[in-house]
């Protein structure tokens, strides 16, 4: 199932009924600007070498196969935007340090091995941001996984096959915390 746009509904009858419903409470005033959805904030990309390294890293974390990967999904820009507008200073420092480490690993003969420390991946914050950025992008949410914004029906226990993709949304919304696991 592909992404169903906001204006598309489960059945024609429902779409019609919904159209008839809009504005059914005639409070006779225009929509208020406080409800308007702002565009994503503009941001300054990282300096070229760091931007290129981040591009390479997100592509390693979630590569393209039959669907596009994190790089094609614009995850690099998402992380740069979050860095500038969302993170606190400690989180920015953590991202900086992880990216330094990643750039150093890329310069070695065996980047894959040098991105790991035993079983541990050495850039966990950037890994988490890549996952959150990818599966909330249009590609990740609707091509890689299943996005159905207006299902129109509920089946509490549908049978799914091995090749069915997981839904990318839940009922409550998804929140993000960059607090390292194990920290208070």
């Amino acid at each position: 199932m592909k992404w169903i746009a906001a204006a598309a509904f489960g059945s024609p009858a429902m779409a019609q009924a919904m159209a008839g419903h809009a504005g059914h409470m005639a409070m006779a005033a225009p929509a208020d600007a406080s409800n308007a959805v702002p565009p994503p904030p503009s941001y300054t990309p990282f300096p070229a070498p760091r931007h290129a390294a981040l591009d390479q890293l997100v592509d390693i974390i979630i590569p393209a196969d039959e669907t596009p990967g994190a790089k094609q999904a614009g995850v690099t820009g998402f992380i740069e935007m979050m860095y500038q507008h969302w993170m606190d200073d400690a989180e920015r420092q953590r991202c900086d340090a992880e990216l330094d480490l990643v750039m150093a690993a890329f310069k070695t003969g065996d980047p894959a091995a040098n991105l790991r420390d035993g079983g541990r991946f050495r850039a966990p914050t950037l890994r988490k941001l890549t996952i959150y950025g990818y599966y909330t992008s249009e590609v990740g949410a609707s091509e890689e996984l299943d996005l159905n914004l207006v299902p129109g029906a509920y089946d509490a226990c549908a049978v799914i096959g091995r090749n069915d993709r997981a839904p990318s949304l839940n009922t409550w919304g998804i929140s993000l915390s960059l607090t390292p696991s194990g920290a208070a």
Partner: protein
Amino acid sequence: MDADVIVVGSGISGGWAAKELTERGFSVLLLERGRNVVAGTDYTTEHLAPFQLPYRGFGDRQRYARDYKVQSKVAGLSDAIDHWFVNDTQNPYQTSPEAEFAWIRGYHLGGRSITWGRASFRLAPLNFAEAGQDGHGIPWPIGYDDLAPWYAHVERFIGVNGDRDGIPSLPDGEFMPPHGMNCVEEHMRDAVAQKMNGRRIINERSAVLTRQLGDRLPCHYCGPCIRGCSTGSYFSSESSTLPAAQATGRLKVMTDVVVDSLVYDPSGRRVTAVRVIDAKTRKRSTLGAKVVFLNASTLGSTQILLNSIDAGSGRSFANRSDALGRYLMDHVMGPFGIGTIPGFGDRQPLGNRPSGIYIPRFQNVATRDRPFARGYGYQGSASRQMWTRGADGEDIGAGLKHRLRQPGPWQIFIGGMGECMPYADNRVTLAKDTDPWGRPQLDVAFTWHANELAMAKDMAAEAQAMLHAAGATDFAVGDTLGPGGLAIHEMGTARMGADPAKAVLNAHNQCHDAANVFVTDGACMTASAAQNPSLTYMALTARAASFAADQMKQGVL
């Protein structure tokens, strides 16, 4: 006279006052301090995908840190819904770290009827009978039988889905068919009933339509109701009560009008006018009506009453009892249990159900069997883990991508919600500082006492026992309580009671000290019970409106 009745506040209770009074033939002027909201048109985030939101739904965190310090304590405040919550910097109040209270508010037409979680339960005969009988609080001036017909009236109009479960601590109502449990919830229901003496797990009762009701359509299962619903499928003032009041031709709505206080006439012992402030120009004026209904939310209504000074005594006209502002309650919420349920890998819910399961109170029902008074219930649900579980691993590359393609293991979550006792020192008063409209700010002091803390421990222990019974692995439980207010069920501060020396309101939500003032939001609550309270506010409002209408018809008011 600007109308027969002035209703202050257009949220869950105010919408009901407006509907019931206009339908009984009276003109109503509804005053709302917030902006207008047009149903449908103003639900601008309703079906947006994460990538259509500025922060993908993760919220404008830096703005929240600056201007939404209190509101951002609500789990999940995000760029999809932050326009339904007040800016704390622009709407200040006082509270201290030792007695912190988080006041969660929405100032706009419809109030928190847009953002509420829709869980709708009746109070039980037991809840009315216990109050004042076990050393906590005072007795209710009404019993379950007084409210039962009004619960039915409200349920039929708002549309509540659920089962008739026949449970003494949670009376049945007028229900549409429930959305239904998923297989893991059914598994837990059966395991808990079998291993724990028939303990019940039921479908949550929720004010969301599963059948068409008038021109409101059944749920389309998009999931995040809190963004607003253009099909009017869940109860809000916009979907339900305001259109009904509007249809009578007797409703006038004024938005962007802050009610400051009531003008009291001591000789007639009644209120003669309402002082208002234009929210934008700050211009002050007065409006008149025969009767005033205060529905500005628990603390909003009490703030208005505290600020309504009787010139003779120099204090609020409504406070002969000294109960005004005291006995603030919020539900005991925070303790939880979560666990993984093995199996059921070939099953996946399709569509996003806007409700879950409920575990009604099983403590202190037939006999006092716990080291604390009264009791609690749980809300919860089972679902499959999503792609977010990927963040916990160390894997990268094709393996990670393929792992997250499939839904993860099933998890079940239950969170407790328990009764809070009324304490005189959990209290709101007027502060010296004023707000941007020149009104005295509220000062709110709230702490949990021993009964609530003991209840919280028990909630966590019982959650663990039930998850264990269901065969959960990797379970985690919590028993800590945050600041008061975060259950967003603040109530009390102008309680009902038969004795004017101990209570602000009588059995009809009428001020003991002014017959033409009614308070029918959460401020009136004598005891909190453990059930989500808004259905009770609606039933009390409808009942009080019917009484006020009769009194006006008889010329008493």
